[in-house]
């Protein structure tokens, strides 16, 4: 599908929503707590000028990306091993099948008892949540590799390590990216959740929203939400860009 007209429509739609919102707020047909787009943009500017905003974003990003990095390393490695070696698979499958349907956010209080309300807890809960889509996608991707790829690798004398690195990994990459995209979305959801539950003083967009909530500053709340939304949006696009760079050979690329 051609993306250009769709992008145009997206911009028009967004502008229309903002315009209606602004008008309704301007005529005071909206309750004041709904603020208005211009007021929110102003507050975003204030927060930026304040200097704290960069800290809030920095700390939130640090937690998110540490968690996500763990997911990439552990999820992909275990996924490949579980898909390739049947014994690893039969060992890990029950654990994954049991844990996967559980709302992982419920594990947050357990971690809080163990590690306190710290970044360790937050990074771990992000990892525990985002691990599953990546692991499952990688494992299933490895399992669905065409036999002839492995056979011709063996035929050309490749060792098991060479098979895993030079055939299994590249063939599975499209699936890995599919899983990572879901994982990335969960990363930001859990970043927000872990910052807003069991609040502590410190930096983070979740804290910003929470404090604005307690102080009744809904314009700051909207600003905080907008920044989280922007982060989620930008990093999703970043992942898709990396994907299309790495998978330039993939005919089915999105």
């Amino acid at each position, binding site marked *: 599908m051609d993306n250009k007209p769709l992008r145009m429509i997206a911009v028009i739609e967004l502008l229309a929503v903002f315009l209606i919102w602004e008008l309704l707020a301007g005529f005071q047909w909206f309750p004041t707590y709904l603020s208005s787009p211009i007021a929110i943009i102003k507050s975003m500017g204030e927060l930026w000028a304040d200097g704290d905003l960069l800290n809030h974003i920095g700390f939130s990003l640090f937690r998110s990306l540490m968690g996500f990095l763990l997911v990439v390393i552990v999820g992909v490695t275990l996924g490949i091993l579980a898909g390739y070696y049947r014994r690893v698979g039969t060992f890990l499958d029950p654990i994954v099948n049991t844990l996967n349907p559980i709302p992982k956010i419920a594990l947050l209080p357990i971690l809080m008892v163990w590690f306190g309300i710290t970044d360790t807890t937050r990074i771990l809960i992000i990892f525990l949540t985002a691990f599953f889509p990546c692991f499952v996608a990688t494992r299933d991707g490895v399992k669905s590799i*065409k036999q002839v790829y492995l056979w011709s690798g063996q*035929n*050309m004398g490749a060792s098991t390590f060479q098979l895993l690195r030079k055939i299994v990994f*590249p*063939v599975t990459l499209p699936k890995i990216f599919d899983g990572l995209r879901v994982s990335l979305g969960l990363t930001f959801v859990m970043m927000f959740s872990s910052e807003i539950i069991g609040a502590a003083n410190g930096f983070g967009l979740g804290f910003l929203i929470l404090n604005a909530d307690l102080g009744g500053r809904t314009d700051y709340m909207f600003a905080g939400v907008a920044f989280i939304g922007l982060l989620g949006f930008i990093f999703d696009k970043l992942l898709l860009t990396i994907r299309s760079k790495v*998978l330039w050979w993939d005919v089915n690329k999105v």
Partner: protein
Amino acid sequence: MTKKHAAMEIENLRKVYSTKKEEVVAIKDVSLTIPEGKFVSIVGPSGCGKSTFLHIVGGFIEKSSGKVKVRGKEVEKPGPDRGMMFQESALFPWLNVFDNVAWGLDIQGVAKKERNEIVEKYLKLVRLWDFRNQLPSQLSGGMRQRVSLARILAFDPEVLLMDEPFGALDAQTREEMQVELLRIWSESKKSVLFVTHDIEEAVFLSDTVVVFSGRPAVISEVIDIKFPRPRDLNLYKSAEFRDYRNQIWDMLHQEHHKPVQIVSEVVNG
């Protein structure tokens, strides 16, 4: 030279699949010898075990009993001494044509300069040097199989194994590929074990056609094709060609009723 070994010797090869309930004999004590430099085809009805047979020789599937030797050396697992060509393209979709052909050489640690020369030589042999920067997905089915052939020839196996390599191609491309294969084969002079369900393809290409009967697979007939080489597509029109074709056709259509075991010189090696 003390004793000259045949290119491939298969002795009493047996493959049994065990399920919980029963044991199914897929291949029953097949012996076959392929002399050096010969082109031997196996034909048989689909599901008769001819592909399984080839996969065992390739080392991809474990045999139940028997021996597989390549130039006198017994083989157990896959290895670059037997170049295997599959029906579906096994080219790696994330590598371009050049890198695909270079892959096996890299694995075996061939130095870069020498590697590039070998890749160039074989891509030119299959007439696809100009396509070296293309991805497999950008090539036609026939071109892909020519790259596959180049990839296998590049790592210089002792024998070639081909599992219906042209089975997925349309009739016209198939005939072109058969001529191509004969041209390339005549330059490399490697022994070939070729599996197909297409009788005419087998007759056109081979020095010897081995007819498999189905379930469990046994050799029901071995026929020497006495056409001179080089051969071209006009062969298809000759009366002798049709005689060979009809002979094998009859055999495939009656072998359900009574498998006959005729032992020829090739079997005894």
